[in-house]
Structure formats: structure tokens, C-alpha cells
């Protein structure tokens, strides 16, 4: 019985004009966005390779560049926003990345912000969720208004099987269309050859697809529930659209408004004062040594080694003090983002976004992991600079270690997104159960 219902539902969906409109729009957008995003990735990757070759830094300074994440082609997340370059030395620990032109001349944030990335994640989040609503809003209500629901149920068709059939049939069509357009996108990636996807990347892509399915199930079961509850299809669609615009557009926005207004960040002046206060204990000594060094050089004398060593130590202490304040500020920025996410935790769009960017490694977590390597490199620089005054031969021989940071393993990423996946799953189950209960009780005349 279930099989017959499934077949009927699938056929009905497939021949409907709304399905054709939806799938054509999704395919066109998916192909266009993948081609454009791939070209953009290629450019960023080329810049990264060139920068790695050109910007080696010197003995005193190491220039670190951060390359684009391959999966940013599908889920751009924050990948383009977070910067590309930093310079580490014994007297300076960067707390954030700048663009390639450096902190004071780079405008990378300014010219990138304001445009939402149109990528696989955007198409699923916005276009497919709407398509789900368009397909499912009348699955029960229209049959009721046309009288076919009473007719179907007058046969020996159990209600739960009919609903399950509708659910699975619709899901098959939706997931099928999503997979077809995703497949086209993957085909472009593979044929484009400018992106090397490892096995781990493909596993991450599979997980992103699974996330997309969960997200679409949430909207599908919600639509089914409303369709069961409301008898007139147009009213059902109207309600669903209001819910959609709230969940996908307004609620995430309100989350950010709440976080930005209830989680206070210190002003730039306060941060500057904190930095000054942190180094105050050493300030006098630092200036005295600087003056002594200056006097020594001006009089043509080589300064005492102990003076140079102390100067290097104090510069390192200064860098550390400033870094601590910067890190504290950075922590607050991250906490503000986390609060925005928590405030909008009931929005499937936010859950989807959090999960997919983590899987694609285009989220904050990956950036912060990258930045965590800074302190070790700085330590090596400090040790190296001290050698300059203690043992010049050792200083000449010493080599700085390569930049290292621990990238998140696949298993860790998967377990990190589990709460979001489960939340999406449970929201879907709850709406399906509500639809089920309402359908069992529904007056089908």
C-alpha cells in the first residue's frame, strides 16, 4: 500500500509546474554560483601560492599567509572575511589576520562585506527551503479542498500510511532535486581541476549533504503539519511563508541584534588603555633602556650586550601584554557571535549554517585554530632574539620552526556538529509527529 501511495505522490510532484520551476531555478543558480565561486577560489589559491613564495619574511619577522579552504566553494562561511596575512616577530604577536596589504592599508573587509555569498549552502538555505514549502503546502489541504482526501480514505488506506507516503514521496523528490543540483556542482568542481579535494573533503561534503537533508526535512514536516492543520491551500501557503520569513530572515537577524546590544564590547579607547596599563610596570625601565641604547649608538659605541638582551626581553614582554589584551577582546568577539547563535538556536537556518560552516572549515573555529599557532612561533622568535645577545654562532645556525597549528580532525568536526544535527532532526520529528496526530484526528469530509 505504502508503495502505491509513494508512487502516486512522487508522480504528482514530478509533473507539477512548481517542481519544474523550482528545480530549474536551483540548477541554474547552483551551476552559476559554482562556476563563479570556483573562479574566485582559483584566484585566491593562486594569490596564496604566490604569497607563500614571495613573502618569506626575514630572520626577525615571519610572514604567515592563510590559504582559502577548498570547501569554501560550496560553503563560503567566513572564509573570505577573516583575512589572509600576519607577521610574527619577537616584539609583535598578531591577534588577527589582515588582508595581503597589511593592517593599515588593507581594506579587505570593507570591499567584501555587504554581499551575501551565493553558494551551495545559500541555495539550500533559501531556495530549497522555499521549494519545500511550495511543494508541500497543499499536500493535504488541496486534497481536502478538492474532496479527493475523503475519496482516498474511503478505501482501505490507513491514515498513517497515507501521511507517511506523502512525507516520503515529497522527501524523495526534494532530496532527489537537491542531490541532482549538488551533483552538477560537484561535476564542475571535478572537471574544473583547479581544486584538489581529498578523501576527507569528500567525506565532509557527504556530511554537508546529510545536513542539508535534515534541514529540508525540518521545513518539509513543518509544511506538512500546516497543510494538515489548515484546510485552504492558499492560507496554508501564506502561513508557511510568514513562518519562513521569520525563521530564515528575521529571527537570525534579531539574534545578532540581541547579541550586539546585550553583550558589550570594550571600545577601542578602552582596549588601548588596557594595553597601556598591562605594560605599566615595565614602562619606565623600557624607556630608560631605549634611551641608553640610543645614547650608546649616538656616541658611536657598541652598547653593552646585557642592555640589548634586556631590551629584547622587554619588547617580548610588551608584545605578550598587548597580545593578552587583544586575545581577551577577541574572546569577547567570539562570545558575542556565540550569543547571537544561541539567541537564534530555534532557527533551522542558523543550525544549518553553524553545522555546514564547521564541516566545511569555513567557520570561526578553524580560524581560531589557525591563530593558535602564533604563540609557539613567537616563543621561538623570542628565544632566537635572545641568542643574538648570548651566543651569536648559535643564533646564526638557529632555524625557526615552520608554522604549525592543529586543524580539526574529521571525527572532531562530526562530533562538534552533532548537537545542531540532532536539533534539526528533533525539530523535524516533532513537526512530523504533530502532523501525524493532527492528520489522525482530521475531519476529512
Amino acid at each position, binding site marked *: 500500500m505504502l508503495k502505491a501511495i509513494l508512487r502516486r505522490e512522487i508522480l504528482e510532484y514530478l509533473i507539477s509546474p*512548481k517542481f519544474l520551476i523550482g528545480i530549474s*531555478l536551483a540548477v541554474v*543558480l547552483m551551476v*552559476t*554560483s559554482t562556476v*563563479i565561486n570556483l573562479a*574566485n577560489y582559483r*584566484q585566491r589559491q593562486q*594569490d596564496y601560492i*604566490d*604569497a607563500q613564495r614571495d613573502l618569506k619574511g626575514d630572520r626577525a619577522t615571519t610572514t604567515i599567509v592563510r590559504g582559502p579552504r577548498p570547501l569554501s566553494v560550496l560553503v563560503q*562561511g*567566513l572564509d573570505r*572575511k*577573516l583575512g*589572509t596575512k600576519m607577521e610574527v616577530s619577537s616584539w609583535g604577536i598578531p591577534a*588577527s589576520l589582515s*588582508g*595581503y*596589504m597589511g593592517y593599515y*592599508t588593507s*581594506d*579587505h*573587509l*570593507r*570591499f567584501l*562585506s*555587504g*554581499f*551575501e555569498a*551565493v553558494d551551495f549552502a*545559500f541555495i539550500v538555505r*533559501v*531556495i530549497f527551503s*522555499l521549494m519545500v514549502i*511550495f511543494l508541500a503546502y497543499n499536500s493535504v489541504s488541496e486534497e481536502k479542498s478538492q474532496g479527493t482526501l475523503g475519496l482516498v480514505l474511503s478505501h482501505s488506506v490507513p491514515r498513517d500510511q497515507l501521511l507517511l507516503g506523502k512525507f516520503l514521496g515529497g522527501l524523495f523528490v526534494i532530496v532527489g532535486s537537491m542531490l541532482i543540483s549538488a551533483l552538477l556542482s560537484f561535476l564542475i568542481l571535478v572537471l574544473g581541476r583547479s581544486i584538489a579535494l581529498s578523501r576527507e573533503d569528500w567525506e565532509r561534503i557527504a556530511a554537508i549533504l546529510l545536513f542539508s537533508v535534515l534541514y529540508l526535512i525540518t521545513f518539509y514536516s513543518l509544511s506538512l503539519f500546516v497543510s494538515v492543520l489548515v484546510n485552504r*491551500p*492558499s*492560507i496554508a501557503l*501564506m502561513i508557511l*511563508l*510568514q513562518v519562513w*520569513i521569520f525563521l530564515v*530572515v*528575521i529571527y*537570525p*537577524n*534579531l539574534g545578532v*541584534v540581541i*547579541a*550586539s*546590544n546585550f553583550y558589550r*564590547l570594550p*571600545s577601542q*579607547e578602552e582596549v588601548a588603555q588596557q594595553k597601556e596599563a598591562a605594560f605599566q610596570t615595565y614602562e619606565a625601565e623600557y624607556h630608560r633602556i631605549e634611551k641608553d641604547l640610543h645614547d650608546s649608538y649616538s656616541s658611536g659605541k657598541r652598547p653593552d650586550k646585557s642592555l640589548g638582551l634586556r631590551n629584547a626581553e622587554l619588547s617580548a614582554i610588551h608584545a605578550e601584554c598587548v597580545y593578552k589584551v587583544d586575545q581577551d577582546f577577541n574572546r569577547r*568577539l*567570539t562570545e*558575542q*557571535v556565540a550569543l547571537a547563535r544561541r539567541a537564534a538556536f530555534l532557527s533551522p537556518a542558523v543550525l544549518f549554517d553553524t553545522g555546514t560552516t564547521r564541516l566545511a572549515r569555513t567557520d570561526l573555529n578553524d*580560524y581560531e585554530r589557525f591563530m593558535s599557532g602564533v604563540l609557539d612561533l613567537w616563543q621561538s622568535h623570542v628565544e632566537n632574539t635572545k641568542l643574538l645577545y648570548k651566543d651569536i654562532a648559535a643564533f646564526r645556525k638557529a632555524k625557526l620552526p615552520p608554522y604549525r597549528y592543529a586543524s580539526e580532525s574529521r571525527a572532531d568536526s562530526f562530533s562538534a556538529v552533532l548537537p545542531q544535527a540532532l536539533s534539526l532532526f528533533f525539530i523535524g520529528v516533532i513537526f512530523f509527529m504533530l502532523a501525524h496526530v493532527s492528520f489522525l484526528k482530521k475531519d476529512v469530509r
Partner: protein
Amino acid sequence: MGTIIKRELLDQIQSIQFLVLSGASLLLFTVNALVFVKNYPVENSAYSRRVTETFAKSSTVNTELNQRPNPLRFVADGGDRYRPSGYSLNPGGFLRALPTGQINFKMPDIPQLDWSFLIRIVFSLYVLLLGFNAISGEREQGTLRLILSNSVRRSELLVAKFVAILAMATAPLLGGGLISLIIVAINQPQILTMANLARIALILPLTMCFLSVFVFMSLWVSSSVSRSSLVLLILLATWVLLTVIIPNTSGILAEKLSRAPSEYQMGRMVGPLIEKQVFDRIRAILSRAEKGQVSSAGEMRQEADKAYDEGQRDLVRHFSNYEAAMKDRAELSRRLTRISPAGLFQYALEDVMHAGKWREDDFLRDARNYAPIYDDYVLKKVGQLVGVSNFSFAVSTTIKGEDVILSSPSPKEYQGDKSDFPRFQENRISPLQGVQRALLDLVGLLVWTIILAGLAFSSFLRADVR
């Protein structure tokens, strides 16, 4: 006619759509105003502090031209948070953008909840929800035939429906807007000057024109298609295309279409540029000195100063070219967005409110006008125009047995009385000039309205109402 409008209004007032729209409007406009009155004073006092500090310093080395926070940001944000908080000015007219105000760069980009967003996204959608079954719903229920069997002209009925839908969308907008304004007036009364109130008043006709596009669109589709649910479907697909897809894809399309170089490509040219323009020339001077082709130390210094100055100019030109390329790209995306009435409305509103791109351009014009005044001042006080540079050089050589040190000129801070330091004045265009700038966008909106009105009327006049 009056009776029909009354009936339509009564019908709409009782609908769920109207109730939800009123509730949402009230909530969102209140949030908008509360967020603004919380942030604006902080930004404003930071601005005043920066201006005071700049004047207190009155530096002849480098000065800051700060931009006043936009007092109408709650109406149209115009991407102000990503724009520089002002420009730094070096003697010689070299301008460089200052960092933006404090933004959390880790936060995902989402649109600001300003009036422009609320009208563009929320109200346009609700107009469709109010109007989708205006004709098709009545046809389904059979009431359309009944009405038209009386001596009611079709055009009159359509006009009545248009007026009712527009009134029902405008009423919550006026209510919400008024609450927002009251909150702003209580907390920041100085913002509501006559000029700003005139700008805000202009929102009403602009919004009516924008919403009319969607009202006529819904009436057209509603009279052409018989099933209400299909009408809604078509309308929503169009809405998604006009308000979500076109504005969002225009950014990546512009990126693809424009040939702006990447930041790295621009960045890597800086080193060779300075090398060629400055250090090669310095080396050439030194080698000529060695060969005895330079007669005096003064002549050498003069040439070195010239190399420094031209290198400085080239570097500034290099950065300006990059910025211009990026601005061109942003302009291209704006042009692409103008295909949609939502884009036309957004840019028209920004122009009238003096926000966004024009505001920054106007500020830059003021800054360029101020630059010669600053230069005159520096020349008067210091005698030369030397600013802070990205590069410096210091080399020594000998001419006729005399040791000569060639070094890049360093900027000099005048130590005397600087009470006559010229103040920078930022000008704000009048509401009328704003309307003039928005004229093309307004015409675009009117064209959309006229075309859709024509389609709605011709479709309804010929519709089979049985």
C-alpha cells in the same frame, strides 16, 4: 467607488495577514529605534572626541578628517558600518581611509534592520500576501461575478482594490514608523531637524511608489490566474527573484564581470614600485656622485627629495587605483541590482537620506576641498610639504671629499601657536538635492509601476469572471 473601497478595507482589516503585518511592523520598528538610540550617542561621542583630539593636536605632519555618524542610519544604513570612519590627510593632499568604526568581524554578514530593509523585504512580501487573492479569491468564491453583476465598473473595482491593499500596507508602516520616530525624538531630539524631517516625510511617497509595484503585480497575477494558491506561488517566486536572488547575486556577478586585480596582486606591486621610483633613482644619484657628475650636496639633496616626493605620489596613486577599481566593482553590482525594484527603492532611499555611497563620495569631495587649505597652513608654518611615508632611506656618500648623508625628508611638527589651525567642515546635501540624485531610480520605480498597472488593468478588464 467609496462603498467598494470601504468594503475592501473592511475585508482586509479582518484578515490574518493584516494583523500579523501590524504586529510585526510594531515589533520590528520598535527594535530598530531602540537599537539606534542605544548606539548612536556612543558613536556620536566617539566622533566628537576624535574631532576634539584632532583639533587639540593640530598636527602639521598628518591630520584626521572624521566623518559624522549618519543621524538617519535607522532609516537607511547604506552599509555605513563597513565604510571608513573618516580619512587621514597628509600634506600634499594624500588621503587614506581610516579604519571603520568598531565592528565584530567574526559576526556573519546580515542585513541591518533599518526602515529600508523592513519596507523592501517585509512590507513587499506582505503586500503580496494581502493582494494575492484579491481577484482570484473572489472568483473562487463566486463573489466576483456577483459584484460585477451590479453597476460597478471593472476599472473602479480594480482601483478600489489597489487603494485598499496599499492603505492596508501603509497603515502599519505609518504606525511603526511613528513609534520609531517617537522613540528617537524622546532620546535624540536633536536628530529631528527640519531637513531630516523633510527627508523622512519623503519616504512616504517613495514607499507608496515601491509598494504599488507589488500591489499591481499581485492584482495582475491574481486576475490572470484562476487558482489563488497558484497565484501566490507565482508571486512568491517573483518576490524571491526580485528581493533575494538579484540583490545577492549582483555582488558575485560584478566580481566576475569586473577586471579588478586581487589585493595580493596590488600588494605585490608596492615593493617594485618603490624600488623603481625611489631606490633606483637614489642609487643613480650616488653613482653620478661617484663619477663626479654632481656638483654639490645641495643638488643631490634636491634630486633625492624629488625622488622621494614622486615615489610618494606614485604610491598614493597606486592605492587610489586599487580603491577606484573596487569602487567600480561595487558600482557595477549596484547597477545590476537596479534591475529589481527593490534595488531601485534601496538606492533612492539612500540618496534621499544621504547615506551609503554618495555620502562617502561627498565626504571625499569635502576632504579634497580641504586639502589645499591644510597645505597652505602647513606651508605657512613649516615651509615644506612632507607627510608620513611608507618608506624611508638614508645613505651616505662623499662629494669632493665632503661627507654627505642623503635621507628621506621627515615631516616636521610645528611647535609654535597653532590656534589658527583650519577646521574641516563636512557638508550635508539638502533633501531636494537628494531627490535630484534619486530621480533616475524614482523614474525606474515609476516605469515598473506603470507597466504593472497597465498589465493589471488590461488583464482584469478582459478576465472571464465566471
